[in-house]
């Protein structure tokens, strides 16, 4: 799960990471009020869960509350990468001497938490890693022991030659590491981490991605979920225990298992069409889940045919077949359905499908070809 900058900053503040005064505004008026309260020039920053806000004009410097009003109005209207901006963060503007990068990730390669720092902050860190890898410093942390102060100091010294600043950075690195581990983050990032001419340091931006598997033990973070920012179908799917990603093609896919679902999408493409979605009904296979999946897919206007690809294992084919029958009867789908069923209780399932005049195949290739054919009317 992703959360907004202002939410990540709330978490940072709890750990003592220096974050400038600021509040989130839902309207230009609110933006103006916050700027007045701050009483200094402010930044007005679009709160959207995608990158590239700055380039899209979603971050503005406002000298006074009236400008803050003006920019909040502009930004609250705009779309960034197709996503409408509904909130802005109004926060004290900083006098920037230098911009660095500080981040912590779960590293699947080393199987350790890895702290990453770079002097080259403020820009896309993956770009820096590609073009000037010598500017990136990584530290693998022993997850049983945790990050030690000397390690944080070493990292701080990699990005600042002035030891006083390096020590301040080290302190932030330690706090960021705690915030990362204690909140089940998959990423916790400060970019840019800035210094001012006065020698202050600030987390100017804040990014936290949460490990979905850890969310259950952080209800306070789960409650930060921005339901506005999520695709309504994807949200509905998630709430119904389905894994769903919307795409742009016209073959609606319902599959059990993530790998098989991706392979099914790939096969659709392989035979010249585009999938309308990724959808994994998962291991347990109640008819309700199938009904739910159908409902979600039928909401997409571009879907021209529905493709079921079920390899029965834990998932029992008859359960899926029952779900299809229920869905056909209840939803009266306006598009044709192609079904592949194999594995556990396959024969039983094929009989069930006869009730709604569907003939299931056992072959994945066949069902994909058939769905494409059906989609063309």
């Amino acid at each position, binding site marked *: 799960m992703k959360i907004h900058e202002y939410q990540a900053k709330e978490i940072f503040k709890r750990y003592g990471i220096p974050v400038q005064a600021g509040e989130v505004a839902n309207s230009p008026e609110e933006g103006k009020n916050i700027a007045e309260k701050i009483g200094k020039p402010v930044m007005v920053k679009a709160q959207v869960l995608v990158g590239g806000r700055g380039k899209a004009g979603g971050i503005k410097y406002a000298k006074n509350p009236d400008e803050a009003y003006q920019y909040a109005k502009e930004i609250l209207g705009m779309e960034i990468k197709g996503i409408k901006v509904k909130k802005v963060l109004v926060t004290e503007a900083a006098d920037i001497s230098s911009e660095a990068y500080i981040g912590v990730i779960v590293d699947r390669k080393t199987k350790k938490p890895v702290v990453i720092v770079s002097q080259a902050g403020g820009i896309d860190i993956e770009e820096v890693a590609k073009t000037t890898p010598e500017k990136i410093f990584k530290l693998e942390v022993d997850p049983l022991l945790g990050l030690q102060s000397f390690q944080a100091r070493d990292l701080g010294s990699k990005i600042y030659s002035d030891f006083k600043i390096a020590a301040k950075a080290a302190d932030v690195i330690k706090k960021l590491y705690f915030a990362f581990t204690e909140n089940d983050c998959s990423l916790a990032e400060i970019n840019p981490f800035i210094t001012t001419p006065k020698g202050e340091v600030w987390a100017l931006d804040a990014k936290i991605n949460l490990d979905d598997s850890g969310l259950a*033990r952080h209800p306070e973070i789960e409650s930060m979920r921005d339901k506005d920012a999520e695709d309504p179908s994807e949200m509905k799917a998630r709430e119904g225990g389905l894994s769903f990603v919307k795409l742009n093609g016209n073959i609606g896919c319902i599959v059990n298992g993530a790998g098989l679902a991706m392979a099914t999408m790939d096969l659709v493409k392989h035979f010249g069409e585009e999938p309308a979605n990724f959808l994994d009904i998962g291991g347990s296979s109640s008819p309700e889940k199938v009904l739910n999946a159908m409902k979600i897919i039928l909401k997409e206007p571009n879907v021209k045919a529905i493709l079921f690809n079920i390899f029965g294992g834990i998932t029992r084919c008859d359960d899926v077949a029952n779900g299809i029958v229920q869905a056909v009867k209840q939803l009266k789908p306006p598009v044709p359905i192609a079904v592949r069923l194999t594995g556990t209780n396959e024969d039983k399932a094929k009989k069930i499908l006869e009730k709604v005049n569907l003939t299931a195949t056992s072959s994945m290739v066949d069902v994909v070809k058939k769905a494409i054919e059906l989609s063309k009317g």
Partner: protein
Amino acid sequence: MSILVDKNTKVVVQGITGRDGSFHAKQMKSYGTNVVAGVTPGKGGESVDGIPVFNSVKEAVEKKGANTSVIYVPAKFAVDAIYEAADARVKLIVCISEGIPAIDMLKVYNYLKTTETRLVGPNSPGVITPEVAKVGIMPGQIHKKGEIGVVSRSGTLTYEVVYHLTLNGLGQSTCIGIGGDQIIGTNFIDCLFLFEKDPQTKAVVLIGEIGGTDEEEAALYVKKNMKKPVVAFVAGRTAPPGKRMGHAGAIISGGSGTAEEKIEAFEKAKIKVAPTPAEVAALIKEELVLIQQNKPNT
């Protein structure tokens, strides 16, 4: 021979009285697996399908000689179950449970490195040595004893590939689902190493998917260290970046972890990549023919 699981495998099922645990304990037993015990704290003394239930893995090991654990407990108890099995010194833990937080798995992984215990998973469909023992949730009947090793990050996609292998007369030595999560106990390379050493295995199928760089590392490993042929399949060519496709591992992040990169890495390592799951079998057949032709004594 085979790898990880063989005729000496004695399984203890952790979470045997749960919905999944009891169902699959029966399934494994009826497949012929030597399921010697189950564990559910507080249910010691009961039995499931004739399998005795104990309060702890230690008891199962001491009283029934269990050497392999398979874990079906809910995610929030799974980490404790892994530590318990490792503490009881089972040789292999197969963790089916999904949804274990990555932060916990980092600790588990680094802790297990200091022990003799191997972990497969979590979020794994299991390990099967066809016609010998099944430790997991895969449908047993699609498998057939043979000479092809299969290693995969996926569940049902593996079944799809295995199904075609079997249809084409290509039996399997061992099939391993290493699990779909970011942080897993056993990776592709570990399995490739074991398959290379296993006399029964003649060729290996590697089923990858988007996310991470495990496939790239496996490709390099095959190039450098393996004499046996490997055929690959990679799922997710059509997956969009930044979107998680089902489980924690399957995500293209920051433009890396794409199917294209992985396929390119395999091709660079002279590993044939099947365009569809069904075509894996044909490529394996080609490789087997090549082995046959290159044999000095034919």
